[in-house]
């Protein structure tokens, strides 16, 4: 039985917001997975707080609408408790790169089998337009009306040196690319990281520059670490350089969740183990 994938919750994203593209793409990808025999009962979505987080209300799948910056540790707990689940995180750039940055690096380090989709609109949307770690230098936001003096960091590079085994970038106006990338990311075993350049229609509408400068990675071997480094560095999230989209890096490695089973211990066994332990302490 295939389920209705969108809830009846009222959608409150701004007209033109890139989140719609991510929502519909995820819906399609999930539908496809279901058709191919994966039960959606086993899929869990975890979100942070921000415009992106509303995904939890809109997609009719299991979801944990967590707190700002903390989607990944919740997702990690879910995956450890039950490694059979497919766990997907939708996080904002403020969320994943500022408030909760440490968690991303540790999720990558553990190579836990989770997919992190960052709705990278390069601005705090829901709190009305402040700079984020991927806003360009001299960004005039509401907390920095005179322009930021900090350069952005490059989240792809951070993910790479932290140990992520799948690293991609895509763009909300490239629907097919978005869809293929999200599907690959979810299918990948290990920590998958996708930075989605997401249009914020209200506070940072980059449609024109992105559309002009985006190009698809070609002749790129995602198994080549050095090539990945180099390609990632082409655009630093601040300059006007061309913006490569695609899968920069992909490799196989053992995952953190591998070692955990699903399911506990029998009551009797537990009682015996406690009794045995107490006996040893006499």
């Amino acid at each position, binding site marked *: 039985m295939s389920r209705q994938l969108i809830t009846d919750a009222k959608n409150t994203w701004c007209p033109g917001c890139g989140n719609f593209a991510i929502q519909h793409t995820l819906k399609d990808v999930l539908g496809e997975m279901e058709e191919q025999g994966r039960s959606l009962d086993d899929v869990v979505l975890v979100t942070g707080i921000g415009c992106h987080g509303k995904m939890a209300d809109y997609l009719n*799948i299991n979801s944990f609408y967590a*707190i700002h910056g903390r989607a990944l540790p919740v997702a990690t707990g879910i995956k450890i*408790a*039950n490694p059979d689940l497919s766990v997907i995180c939708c996080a904002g750039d403020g969320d994943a790169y500022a408030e909760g940055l440490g*968690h991303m690096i540790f999720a990558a380090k553990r190579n836990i089998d989770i997919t992190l989709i960052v709705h990278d609109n390069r601005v705090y949307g829901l709190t009305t337009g402040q700079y984020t770690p991927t806003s360009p230098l001299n960004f005039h936001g509401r907390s920095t009306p005179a322009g930021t003096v900090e350069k952005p960091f490059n989240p792809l590079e951070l993910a790479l040196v932290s140990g992520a085994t799948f690293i991609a970038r895509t763009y909300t106006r490239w629907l097919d690319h978005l869809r293929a990338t999200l599907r690959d990311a979810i299918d990948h075993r290990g920590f998958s990281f996708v930075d989605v350049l997401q249009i914020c229609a209200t506070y940072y509408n980059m449609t024109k520059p992105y559309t002009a400068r985006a190009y698809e990675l070609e002749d790129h071997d995602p198994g080549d670490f050095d090539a990945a480094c180099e390609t990632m560095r082409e655009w630093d999230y601040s300059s006007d350089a061309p913006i490569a989209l695609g899968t920069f890096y992909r490799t196989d490695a053992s995952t953190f969740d591998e070692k955990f089973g699903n399911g506990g211990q029998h009551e009797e066994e537990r009682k015996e183990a406690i009794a045995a332990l107490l006996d040893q302490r006499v």
Partner: protein
Amino acid sequence: MNDYSILIGGKAGEGINRAGSVIVRILSHLGYCQYMYYDYPSLIRGGHNFALVRASTHRIGTHRNAVEFLLALDQDTVDVHRWRCSDGTAVLFNANKVDAEGMGIPIDDIVEEEGGSSVMVNTCLIGAFGRAAGIPWATMEEVLTLEIPKKIETNLRIARRGYDAVEEQTPIPRQEAARHPILTGNEAIGLGLLDAGLDAYVAYPMTPSSGLLHFLAGVAGDFALKVIHPENEIAVMLMAQGAAYAGARTAVGTSGGGFCLMTEGLSMAGMTEVPVTIVMAQRGGPSTGTPTYTAQGDLHFILNAGQGEFPRFVISPGNIEQAYEWSARALNLSWKYQVPSILLEDKTLAEGAYSFDRDMTTPVGREAVARRDGGSPYRRYAATETGVSPLATVPLEGEVIKANSYHHDERGITTEDPALVAWLNEKRMRKEDAMLEEIDRLSPVTTAGDGSADTALLCWGSNIGVCAEVAGEAGLKVIQPIVLSPFPVQAFNTALENVTVLIAVEDNITGQLTRLVEGLGCCVDDAILRYDGRPFSLEELREQVREVVA
């Protein structure tokens, strides 16, 4: 009543804690009830550590100042603790290092002659203690063999040399009594959690909660337990929420500063109604404070932590059996009511070692929780009379489970509608009634001492040990609320009946339990407060109570 105190002291890194434990076990094998207080500064080598072991034919939960045996590996032990000694005290010391009166043993020489390593100085001193206490060598050998996993031959030789080097001085006779296992408070809590079916434990190291992490990591294999040590306490709390959402009964452990970092997740648990059990081990604060010393300074913080209003269990066990039983209950209650359960212990209980009387605890077991009601679609936050919605965890066939930190409707979808916001606030708070009813059935307030006395000591946490003993001697009553939230007013008032003078005993400077019960209209006549990081000894509290009661 037979009652003996033994102090063994030396530098950090010399294995004083282990040595104390060995002595505890020896005396346990002789049929005594035990309590050990372990005192150490926040450093790894050097400094001055000591373990104060007390063995009694009665149940005890506190140490004495006076000692019958002083075992000194370093000069500090003799210098710092001389005041504890009387003429009868047997002073045993490493004559190669320490200058003292009593029975010196050339321990370094012995260890070297026997080809031992430097940590074996303990073994030698313990051997000497055995003889001074008139303990049969067979008992010594039996326990040493149990306690020392490596190089047992050498250790036994060295112990024997210590044994032979001194004379019997204060014989500790064997008692015909059951032998009890020895546990620290942290271990008892760990076992209690396991008893109730703990599936996962997540923690970042922090004194004095780390013992629980180490203990559970060590036994994880025997219990199909998942033990995770993540990047920090924020991750700890959030991972625990994720794990519980996916069905794993999960606990976390920390101390003050780490708990601060969990408060945001705690408030989230209040809103998501995803269960979590938190072991919060108090030490001296504020801030880094005195990491290895005791305090009871966090009660009101714990009662009110997290923005917004939501019910929680706060349970503060005071002795080893309570630690076991109430930990099991805390985990069960958290799942039954889908609220956070906080086990609030103090360093004295967490790291103190106690004889654990299995006959005094009823195994609790993993209590089943009311599962989804079967209706479809599943509504995670379905309205009910008690406020408790039928629980299900992912995966649930054909259904969707939505946890949400925003205000939400029955399905878990965000809402800002004023009527729904008010509804949800009422649903959550309503649980407190049922929680209180449940708690009332579990003897949430214990009493000790002379039940008919009109003067009572009021205490919480580990102070029940010393209070019970002082009250027993002085003919006073003791009242110890174990559950602090929701506060068991009725049971507390019952305990207060006929009491005309109430004296609080607490390890803090503002009288936290005092404030709590005063807020309920109860009048506390006097408070004996200690806030130097050290637990009351029997003599100290006895004296202070005498002054107050006089």
